[in-house]
């Protein structure tokens, strides 16, 4: 029995402690935002926040998560009331197929919590582990910049003006 805190709710999970968090989220809790991409921690589409930092849930066993705070992007807002990072991704239409986007949003959220006014280099460095096969990187970066401004921080060296 492992107790997990996910998006502010405590869940008791009966099962194999080695089970990756991603499977618990999708199969047991019906939280479908985080996606299965590679299953090897190489693509970032399963990224969620653990104690506010990005973690690839496909390679994070639930045994590692007792007494820690997990947040998926369902915890950041809803379709009706999106959070600021989600809103920025919508405004910039940063998704093409959308598969990587929950991971991208989780990563951007973690970055802006730690560094509300990131440099362009810090932004690219933070987003780098997540891959987008559609090639919407420029829109994704614009969305991160927009979110930084919307959340009251800002950006250090704007590569492009935020409209």
């Amino acid at each position, binding site marked *: 029995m492992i107790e997990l805190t996910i998006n502010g709710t405590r869940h008791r999970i009966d099962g194999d402690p080695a089970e990756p968090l991603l499977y618990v989220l999708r199969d047991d809790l019906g939280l479908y935002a985080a996606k299965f991409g590679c299953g*090897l921690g190489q693509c970032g589409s399963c990224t969620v926040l653990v104690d506010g930092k990005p973690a690839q849930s496909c390679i994070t066993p639930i045994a590692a998560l007792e007494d820690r705070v997990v947040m998926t992007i369902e915890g950041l807002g809803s379709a009706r009331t999106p959070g600021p990072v989600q809103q920025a991704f919508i405004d910039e239409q940063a998704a093409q197929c959308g598969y990587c986007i929950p991971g991208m949003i989780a990563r951007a959220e973690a970055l802006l919590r730690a560094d509300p006014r990131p440099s362009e280099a810090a932004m690219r460095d933070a987003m780098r582990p997540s891959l987008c096969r559609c090639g919407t990187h420029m829109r994704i970066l614009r969305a991160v910049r927009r979110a930084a401004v919307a959340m009251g921080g800002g950006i250090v060296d704007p590569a492009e003006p935020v409209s």
Partner: protein
Amino acid sequence: MPVEGPLRRRWPRILALIAVAVLTVLAIFALWAREPVIAAIGRPDPASFDPRQVALGASLARIGNCASCHSVPGGRVYAGGTPIQTPFGTIHGSNITPDPETGIGQWSYEAFARSMREGLGRDGSHLYPAFPYDRLRHTSNADLRALYAFLMTRDAVRAEPPANSLIPPLGWRPVLAGWKLLALPRTAPQGPQPQLGALWERGRYLGEGLAHCASCHSPRGLLQQELRERAYEGGWSDGWYAPPLDATSPAVREWTAERLDAYLRTGLSTAHAAAAGPMGPVAHNLARAPEDDVRALATYYAWTMRDARAARSEPVLPDRGTVAARAHPSGAALFRGACAACHEPGAPMMVAGRPDLRLGSPLHDDNPRNAVQVILQGLEPPVEPHGPYMPAYADTLTDKQIAEVTAYMRARWGSGPDWGNLVEAVADARAENGE
């Protein structure tokens, strides 16, 4: 006893005398430590250098791994600024582009050669020995000329490295003359052995000098000098353990010249492991150096490890899965959830030919540092983007969890005694990584 009147009146005088004496000693020391300025020159015309010499210099700069300390990731190459942690504080790699104000644009060849041989700036100031001139000094005049030609034909980048932060009095550079007197290694490195052939000799010349492999792979003394008589017994670099390159090599598979050549040129030996930590950039640079020179280095270091245990006989590598899981059940569960998708025998990555965890030296080292560091930091493809990659677990796993999974892997696949307090080892590694 209360100080009496006359003595109390004399105190200021005594203090003044002491101050004068100290200042005199310091002044004499500073005079003794002083080295001549070499006159500034105008930046040489890049067109004045022979392109073949420039090309040779480019190769040599890769073999010397100059860019690792003289560039920051994502920054302009050779423009300096890289923080280098030492037990005495942080210093920063200097700008070695030909910018006249912030780089070496005003340096003549003589000034450049003197810096590489004697650790002196053009202005005569002593350079910190993080700059491995104790090794670079063994570079030939012709090769130094080529390196000079290469550097002086780079783009001049105006960039002042951040100020060093060292414990007093190390910020006062004349002290370094004392370091040179007391600590500069005087034992000559391995000399020529004509019977071992030209390739070996080329590897010896590069390895013992410009490539300065011993700078990381050897223990250091209290004054951080390389312990030359213990060269290649293993050392430390940027929080990682640089394993021995001599008979004490912990490798469980022989480092033949062929395997070492592949490792240095691709960042991966399929009989061992991938180049991780500070070795990654070394492989990145050597992959872009002349093949013959890398082959020579591989030949030479296969020779320095010729008496290692794996060179005598390669051991059978057991898989003590059941025993290890019984001893470290939580480590086993974490391994299954976090590591097994790639590292369990039969996992797709293993089928695709990546080496088994038991082949690398981390689980056979006498300290857990590299096993812990790979888990904390992961692995960036050292040479090409399609190379070996591993995600970092620093944010995903706690110290205790990393300790458990490390203990499990050591018990399952490693050799040597228990590593002891691994939670502390993880905390130490995190501290060194600046977390």
